[in-house]
């Protein structure tokens, strides 16, 4: 069994609960002292046991977006040495600060996942996020903590990624599900033997379903492990997927609750951006009880997003963002349908008579214009099609509302 910090990962529940209570009380004291928004919300709140957590106020992603950029920080800017960004409700920007200690802790939390996946100092890691998306930083810190060799190049081009797999012979590949599938497909297209690669483990940044997992495992001839994170809290580093395939929340650092089916998290140790009972907008279930791997942290079963966030090629996109882009285009106000897949967003816009033209290039240029607008503003490739207007059955739906098929 591979455990990086047995003291915390295998801690008995009684000890863990004592530690959580201590950390929760210290968190409240810090929040009351250093964050104005919490000082107002927490007036008169006291925690005598972990059960009192249920009486504390929540934090919503909307509040976090409202206090953008630094409203919820508990440290002055000079103590913050790293800013990461994330996307909040309706695509509004969020910023997550880290102090030096936060980064050290992040490295240790990710190291726990890497060690659970069998990574040692003898391994060579390729971290592939197609141009350094949020999250790759965490894996770099983790690998550094484990002292594995990391290839610090993150090409966007799939052929170059395959070449790196062949040249540097990494034993562990850390990547997103989309890139892993691209790689597997490319290797097959080029008639390469995946067994000739030196890969032992593929660590995916997000959970995938079993068929995809098997497809990647077969395509890259390696064991596949997944991770789960919430970018506003910590991604990666929130939980560890053990050998038995369960996600264990790192409960010495995070308190997890499930509130009306939604995962609610409290950060216990964060210095720069401590969050109390943060609504993650992710459906989840938790299971208590001992796991075969010996870890005592709650087992988490993450579900779908509850706020209409789609993942398109590992970029988060909200329906409202699609609407906003279209409303600034020449096709503003036209009904449209969005089809989302893992790889692509397809928007079918119903054409009106005034937009319609006999010449192809007029329509074509409109299409290109809208596609370029999507790429520029959302950072994802969107396929735009024009369709004949439907006969309006329900006047409310037919005018401007997006019809979504996911």
């Amino acid at each position: 069994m591979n455990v990086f910090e047995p003291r915390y990962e295998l801690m008995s529940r009684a000890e863990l609960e004592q530690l959580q209570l201590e950390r929760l009380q210290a968190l409240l004291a810090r929040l009351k002292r250093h964050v104005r928004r919490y000082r107002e919300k927490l007036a008169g709140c006291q925690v005598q046991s972990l059960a009192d957590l249920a009486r504390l106020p929540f934090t919503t992603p909307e509040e976090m977006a409202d206090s953008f950029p630094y409203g919820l920080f508990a440290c002055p800017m000079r103590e913050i040495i790293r800013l990461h960004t994330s996307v909040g409700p309706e695509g509004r920007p969020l910023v997550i600060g880290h102090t030096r200690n936060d980064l050290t802790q992040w490295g240790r939390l990710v190291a726990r996942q890497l060690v659970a996946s069998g990574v040692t100092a003898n391994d060579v890691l390729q971290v592939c996020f197609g141009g350094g998306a949020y999250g790759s930083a965490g894996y770099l810190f983790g690998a550094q903590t484990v002292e594995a060799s990391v290839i610090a190049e993150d090409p966007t081009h799939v052929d170059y990624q395959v070449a790196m797999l062949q040249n540097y012979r990494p034993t562990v590949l850390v990547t997103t599900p989309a890139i892993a599938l691209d790689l597997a497909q490319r290797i097959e297209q080029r008639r390469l033997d995946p067994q000739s690669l030196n890969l032992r483990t593929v660590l995916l940044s997000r959970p995938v379903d079993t068929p995809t997992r098997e497809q990647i495992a077969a395509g890259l001839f390696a064991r596949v492990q997944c991770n789960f994170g919430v970018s506003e809290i910590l991604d990666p580093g929130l939980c560890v997927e053990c050998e038995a395939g369960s996600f264990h929340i790192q409960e010495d650092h995070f308190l997890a609750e499930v509130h009306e089916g939604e995962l609610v998290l409290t950060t216990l140790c964060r210095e720069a951006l401590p969050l109390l009972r943060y609504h993650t907008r992710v459906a989840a279930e938790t299971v208590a009880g001992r796991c075969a791997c010996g870890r005592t942290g709650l087992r988490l079963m993450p579900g779908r997003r509850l706020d209409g966030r789609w993942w398109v090629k590992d970029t988060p996109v909200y329906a409202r963002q699609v609407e906003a882009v279209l409303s600034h285009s020449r096709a503003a106000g036209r009904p449209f349908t969005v089809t989302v897949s893992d790889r692509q967003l397809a928007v079918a816009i119903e054409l009106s008579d005034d937009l319609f033209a006999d010449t192809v290039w007029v329509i074509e240029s409109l299409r290109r214009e809208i596609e370029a607008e999507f790429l520029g503003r959302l950072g994802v490739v969107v396929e735009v099609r024009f369709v004949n207007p439907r006969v309006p059955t329900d006047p409310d739906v037919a005018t401007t509302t997006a019809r979504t098929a996911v």
Partner: protein
Amino acid sequence: MLLQVRNLRAGYGSLEVVHGVSLHVCRGEIVGLLGANGAGKTSLLKSLVGLLPPRQGEVLVDGRPTRGQPPWRSVSNGVVLVPEGKMIFPDLTVRENLLIGGYHNPDRLLQLDIVLERFPRLRERQQQLGGTLSGGEQQMLALGRALMARPRLLLLDEPSLGLAPMLVREVFAEIQRLRDLGLTVLLVEQNVAAPLQIADRAYVMETGEIIPEGEADQLRHNAQVQRAYLGSTAEEQSA
């Protein structure tokens, strides 16, 4: 966990100085309890051994509740306090001072030998009056007196108080040696830098509450701790 404290509240008269503190000490650890003057550290220690009866909360030693027990009972539980300012008996000899520490230990003469073995300086001065010892020697005497009770958990209140920096280092080295022998130590200090060198974990108290808690190494790099207690930031220190 040797010592487990939950929501301890304590105070004097109408004044509450410890506002619901939770902490724990595992076997074989040195845990620091740090903070400025008046943070409530000494009151917390006193309420752990029953010198200051806690108003609320739980104190568990080895999982057994000890709240409300008289102070002498904590000694038989293996929890021994070395009070602030040494509090040795100046008019008794070193030997008598030590024997008092082992009053409830039937093997105190045997223990005396062990303690004198640890502190050769005390052996040399066995017949000298406690009040004539130097500050550092008095601190060693206070430590030795606590060891006479064969404690499992040693509560040290400001052992570095009033000592020259070189003697502080000596006292701390001694504490570290005691830990290596298997003793568990809760170390209360105003001075933050030195305890963080030897402690495994630490709690930082401010106005009766614990603000950060964590591994010593982590607290050394905590900017707020640095600003408030270490007097300078990391960059200034290295400059």
